[in-house]
């Protein structure tokens, strides 16, 4: 089965584009003319307080929700022009890591990670090999036959990442991947995200209210040759397979601030300062 959706995008065109997106409920509008772009290989970190629409933005970007107005483009395709069947097919080219992992709790770790490959009709031998490869990447190969209920929160999050990357997506969405985890486990998760970004060059949109995770993505990289995490110096220029990390602060349904990590640190804005405490 062809998992590659026909893309109208040129190589340097933005991968994700939001243009004037509005989304509201009867309690009020959450996103009010929200616009931003994510370049190829870029990691865009969405930061905001709870209830500002970070998760909604992730789901809109993946076509899981439709906006009230505005346009959303993903890999050159206008999601508003696609019906649900076309969106289902298109979503096979992306990865999505949900806030609590969202593993299928009646299926084993192996079956969870293999889910997409089974849907695509891959042969059993290849499925097993790729499942093990994904689980090895997240250091969860030993848990291959366990059930999600047997895993801790951090382990479920790691299996969820393995499930998202088993089909080698070009774009990955992370919805608060470290929410509710202790600092040590959070660091493990961020390390995995760094490895994924730097070894496979994925474009990603990461929603979080923890600024330390966002700075970790910006200030560290994974060296595929050495197999370890390194801190970037200020003068270091990211090599071609690593895109930049930029921050986007959400407030009142709009972009409040957008820029690189240094500009966040240098800003005197009191709202941004709240996240740096």
């Amino acid at each position: 089965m062809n998992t590659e959706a026909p893309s109208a995008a040129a190589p340097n065109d933005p991968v994700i584009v939001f243009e004037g997106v509005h989304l509201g409920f009867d309690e009020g509008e959450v996103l009010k003319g929200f616009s931003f772009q994510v370049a190829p290989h870029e990691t865009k970190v969405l930061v905001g307080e709870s209830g500002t629409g970070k998760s909604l933005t992730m789901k809109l970007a993946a076509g899981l929700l439709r906006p009230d107005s505005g346009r959303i483009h993903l890999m050159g395709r206008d999601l508003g022009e696609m019906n649900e069947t076309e969106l289902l097919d298109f979503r096979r080219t992306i990865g999505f890591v949900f806030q609590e992992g969202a593993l299928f709790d009646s299926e084993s770790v192996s079956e969870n990670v293999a889910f997409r490959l089974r849907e695509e009709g891959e042969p059993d031998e290849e499925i097993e090999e790729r499942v093990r490869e994904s689980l090895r990447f997240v250091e969860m190969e030993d848990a291959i036959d366990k059930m999600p209920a047997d895993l801790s929160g951090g382990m479920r999050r790691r299996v969820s990442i393995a499930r998202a990357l088993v089909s080698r997506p070009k774009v990955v969405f992370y919805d608060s991947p470290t929410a509710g985890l202790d600092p040590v486990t959070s660091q493990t998760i961020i390390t995995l995200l760094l490895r994924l970004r730097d070894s496979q060059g994925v474009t990603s949109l990461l929603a979080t209210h923890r600024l330390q995770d966002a700075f970790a993505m910006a200030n560290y990289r994974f060296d595929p040759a050495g197999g370890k995490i390194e801190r970037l110096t200020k003068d270091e220029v990211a090599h071609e397979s690593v895109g930049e990390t930029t921050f986007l602060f959400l407030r009142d349904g709009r972009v409040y601030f957008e820029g690189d990590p240094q500009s966040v640190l240098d800003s005197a804005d009191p709202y941004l300062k709240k996240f740096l405490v």
Partner: protein
Amino acid sequence: MASFVRRQHGMVTRDTKLLPTEPPAPRHAVSQALKRLVLSVQNYSILSGRALANIFTPPHYIGDLLEQMDMIGVGSLPIVLLAGFFIGAVMVLQTASQFVRFGQTSLTGDAVSLALVRELGPTITGLLVAGRNSSGMASELGSMLVTEQVDAMRAMGTDPIRKLVTPRVLATILMLPLLVAMSDFVGLIGGFVVSYFTLHLNSVEFWTRAIKALEFSDLMQGLTKPLFFGFILATVGCYKGLTVTGGTQGVGRATTQAVVISSVTIIAMDVVLTKIMLYLAGRVF
């Protein structure tokens, strides 16, 4: 009146909460309630239509279908057989007192057979399976929805209606007539046991009359109704599960509502189907 709107699978659902300090005007409340009802019927119809249409187009989830047939069919067997046995037994006890008065105890087999096959078998079995499986579907799918497993499925390019709803609907439609047939048979056994010990009817007399009393139209009636009942209880259960709002409390509410709505709908539809079947009896079959 504030409300929460969810847009998924082409459906729009609302979960109304009263937030204002003043109670709404009665006319407004009635208007809102009617709108919600119409919206629910619309979304239920869309879900049911898609679930049925998926049967005829690939991909087909045969493994999931077989799993559901096992859970719904084999899993419901003990309760259906037990209920069938006791219903047959109590039918004899109730009718025997009347037949004894007229000296026509030999008609017991006729009465039990007709009542079971035409009416009690399909309806009681439908209600039992609705209580067991419609609630199970609502709670399972509702739990999946509130833990974002349904969204995860969509994010991986799988249609949750095709993967979750269609196998459940088809499995119930296929299994319910078989359960009804077994319930009818065990009900006749229960009726025979009681008639043997209380009316001293011999087995030849009971079974011969029980089988001879049945015509093709009775069997058609008794085995066609479960097709509709199965469709109702499965689609209602799945619909309530996939439209849960309010977290785990909402799952509990949806489970209860699934049983109540499917049970009442089965009983109401029984009236309509009986009328249609009686009209068709002798004309078509």
